[in-house]
């Protein structure tokens, strides 16, 4: 096994030439994809990209810093609404995106302040309450259209010469790739190491000179920043935002995403978000699946109720969550590492 000999070997992004090759190949595939697949799949990939961004941020907070947030949909909502408002006021896209994300980060830092003294269930109830409060407050504000919601202006992407869907795909993909790279760098830097030290033991971290309160607040702010960006893009994706979109269940699904993917790893966030989005879309029309669908319909007819069949989505998501914790606590990332280790020495 090759050992690391210096600090710079530890912090560099690509471990070896092979990983650099595969990464660039992957980015190339992403860039050429719109010319080969249908518009529906582009919109699926867009949704995956949104979930990847939220999962990256949430994983920094939950997986790397060890804080719990059950109110992340609230941050996404703040990003979506403030981005939509700024764009309606005529701000160009990039400044609006950054301003919305910074505003969300500021609110995240404020929410981070109580987290300095709270832990476990107390923190979870505060974040949960925050997520609900945001929706109630936004639902009462006329500038955001109240309960009916507000429409989000389309981007002016005509200058690219591409169809709107394709151009939007590039906006989403580029943002996601940039954020993934930033997250990897962040987690390898002093800041990321400080986060992990706090997760493992905050007392030990403060003893070795890490400013715990500073970094905990910062972790909340970063996490909220990502959620803000995702929210702003979410508005563009849906073209119309209502308070009902960003519900309590959405926050739980975000948490489920990173647990499924693997806590504390960037690969895990990406994998989890992709799988969870795909599953979410597939479970919506599970009746259409060839054999399984018929079995489920027959089962519903005899024991359950056919009209409530969409609820099977919740049952399966819940079972997946429980299954991951019981059988594979490191999530898909852990599974991936084990598969890799198994094949490394394969036929011997």
């Amino acid at each position, binding site marked *: 096994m090759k050992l690391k000999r210096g600090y710079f070997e530890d912090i560099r992004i690509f471990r070896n030439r092979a990983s650099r090759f595969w990464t660039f190949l992957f980015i190339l595939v992403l860039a050429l994809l719109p010319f080969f697949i249908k518009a529906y799949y582009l919109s699926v990939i867009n949704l995956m990209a949104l979930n990847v961004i939220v999962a990256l941020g949430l994983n920094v907070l939950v997986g790397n810093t060890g804080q719990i947030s059950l109110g992340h949909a609230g941050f996404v909502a703040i990003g979506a609404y403030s981005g939509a408002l700024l764009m309606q006021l005529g701000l160009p896209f990039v400044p609006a995106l950054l301003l919305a994300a910074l505003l969300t980060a500021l609110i995240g830092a404020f929410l981070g302040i*109580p987290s300095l003294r709270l832990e476990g269930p107390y923190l979870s109830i505060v974040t949960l309450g925050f997520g609900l409060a945001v929706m109630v407050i936004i639902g009462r504000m006329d500038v955001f259209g109240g309960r009916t919601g507000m429409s989000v202006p389309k981007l002016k992407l005509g200058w690219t010469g591409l169809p709107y869907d394709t151009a939007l795909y590039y906006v989403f993909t580029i943002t996601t790739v940039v954020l993934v790279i930033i997250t990897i760098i962040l987690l390898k830097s002093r800041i990321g190491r400080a986060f992990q030290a706090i997760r493992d033991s905050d007392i030990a971290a403060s003893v070795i000179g890490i400013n715990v309160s500073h970094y905990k607040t910062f972790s909340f702010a970063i996490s909220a920043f990502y959620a803000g960006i995702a929210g702003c893009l979410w508005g563009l994706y849906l073209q119309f935002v209502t308070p009902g979109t960003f519900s309590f269940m959405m926050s739980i699904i975000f948490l489920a995403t990173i*647990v499924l993917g693997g806590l504390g790893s960037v690969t895990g966030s990406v994998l989890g978000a992709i799988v969870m989005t795909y599953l979410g879309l597939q479970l919506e029309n599970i009746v259409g699946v060839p054999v399984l669908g018929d079995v489920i319909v027959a089962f519903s007819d005899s024991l359950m*109720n056919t009209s409530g069949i969409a609820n099977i989505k919740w049952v399966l*998501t819940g079972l997946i969550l429980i299954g991951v914790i019981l059988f594979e606590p490191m999530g898909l990332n852990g599974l991936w590492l084990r598969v890799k280790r198994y094949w490394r020495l394969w036929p011997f």
Partner: protein
Amino acid sequence: MISQLLVNALVAGSIYALIALSMSIIYKASEIPNFAQGEMAMFSTYITFILLSVLGWPFLYALAGTLVFAFCLGFLFEFIFIRRAKEPNLLGFIIITLGFQMVLYGLAGWKWGSDQRTFSLPFSESEVVFQTESVVLTEHNLASIVLAILVMAGLYLLLEHTNLGLAMKASQQNVRAAKFNGIPTNRILGISFGISSIVGAIAGVLVAPISTLDPSMMWDPLLKGFAAAVLGGMKSLHGVVIGGLLLGLVENLFGFYISLEFKSIVAFAIIMLVLFIKPSGLFDKHYVRKV
């Protein structure tokens, strides 16, 4: 008017206190905040509904059947899921309870979600028991308060005057020492989950007539109950009850005098303030962790 507000506050407060108690029993026993509590209560309430309206049992039998079902649900939840957790940590337990919550929510929606139900109990909320010019006390109000007091008294007797309560307290204080003294701590934990599920189910039966009977009916009461538990200090049972009553009082006063619109989030504003001053709630001792 103020006396009517106090009555409403007392009713809401006793329901919150019941939910808070059910959260607190589990939290004391295992340090797990059980987010599935609301859905477990909702499921038990559906069982009551079926026993009462579909099978036509008398109310007391239906209630007894529900309580047995609730106990089994809680016990099996602990036995099947919580006990099997590998490398358990707080986040893992929270995820398991959230997952169980989703499963129950999905199952209930699958089976019963599509139709509206009217849930009628022998004590209706339109029949007035007691009326003066300023106060109206309906049967449902009276039943809520009486049932809450009965449950609290029962819990007190159970915890203070039975061997089971002694064993529960022993395994809460120190699992290993309790095990050495021959207490089957795993079974005690399962029984704690069962008892907490019973308390939650009673709260569910009381909530159903005043809201609608549907799979998401316990979301709001659960969050309020959880907030009440945090307000009182999750580990102190009397604190949790006081927290529930306090929350009901503040919420109703706020709703009447300041703003009805923001009534639903005032609970969270209060707990944020309280936790800012006393991080472990009002009535819990705050232990400073030592290295």
